[in-house]
């Protein structure tokens, strides 16, 4: 029988892989993919608690808002990455150091 714990374990694995991607990738677009993995893992948790919890829809409503935030986030983040690429000719985050004093 598949219970809440199974979904929580999948979500934890997805979250850790997202953290790994954010920490180890140099390419900004790849870091964004890691952030998407993290948001998806949070969504799995919300929907799983909505299913196995008290039996209302609040978790799914929250998940809809998380998807909205993710769409807004990726649009603005890609705009920043494109501006950075135009300025420095690189998509790598560790070369974006022009704010350094």
């Amino acid at each position: 029988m598949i219970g809440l714990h199974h979904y929580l374990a999948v979500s934890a694995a997805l979250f850790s892989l997202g953290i790994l991607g954010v920490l180890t990738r140099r390419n900004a677009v790849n870091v964004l993919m890691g952030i998407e993995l993290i948001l998806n893992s949070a969504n799995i948790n919300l929907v799983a608690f909505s299913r196995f919890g008290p039996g209302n829809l609040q978790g799914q409503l929250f998940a809809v808002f998380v998807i909205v935030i993710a769409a807004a986030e990726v649009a603005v983040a890609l705009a920043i990455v494109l501006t950075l690429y135009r300025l420095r000719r690189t998509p790598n985050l560790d070369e974006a150091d022009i704010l350094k004093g």
Partner: protein
Amino acid sequence: MTPGSVVFYVFAAITVGSAAVVVLARSLIYSAFALLFTFFGVAGLYVLLGADFLAATQLLIYVGGILVLLLFGVMLTHKLYDLDLKSEVTQFVPGLVIASGLFAVVVLVAMRTQWAVGSGRPLEPTTAEIGRQFMGPYLLPFEAASILLLVALIGAAMIVRRRGDA
């Protein structure tokens, strides 16, 4: 094993396996296409959890919107003749230590906690009820989300415009 649990394990394996490819692949294009399968796997998990509306939304917005946007990002931040599209990995060992430590802690906490598991939601269509909630008790957050999307749209267009364009 019941058929339901077999389906769960298949979707979980698709999700986690392609997420690992997203994180570990050498090529950005491989990462982007593995992300497609991760989103599909998550949508399958939503279906298993009885969230039919959310599964459709996941496919429409993540696969149709966010993934295409990320692919545009990949294409626009590389020179056209640069076909290999490599993405370098830095500080892999410390990152792996942190991520696996985090995974261990989260799984331990999730397994040990006595969650308040209630009666659970019956498996029934959710779309009508979600619409009713958005037009009722959640109207203010709903409108705030629409304003956020408008601000993000205008902000993204403002940020990428060239200096000097009015």
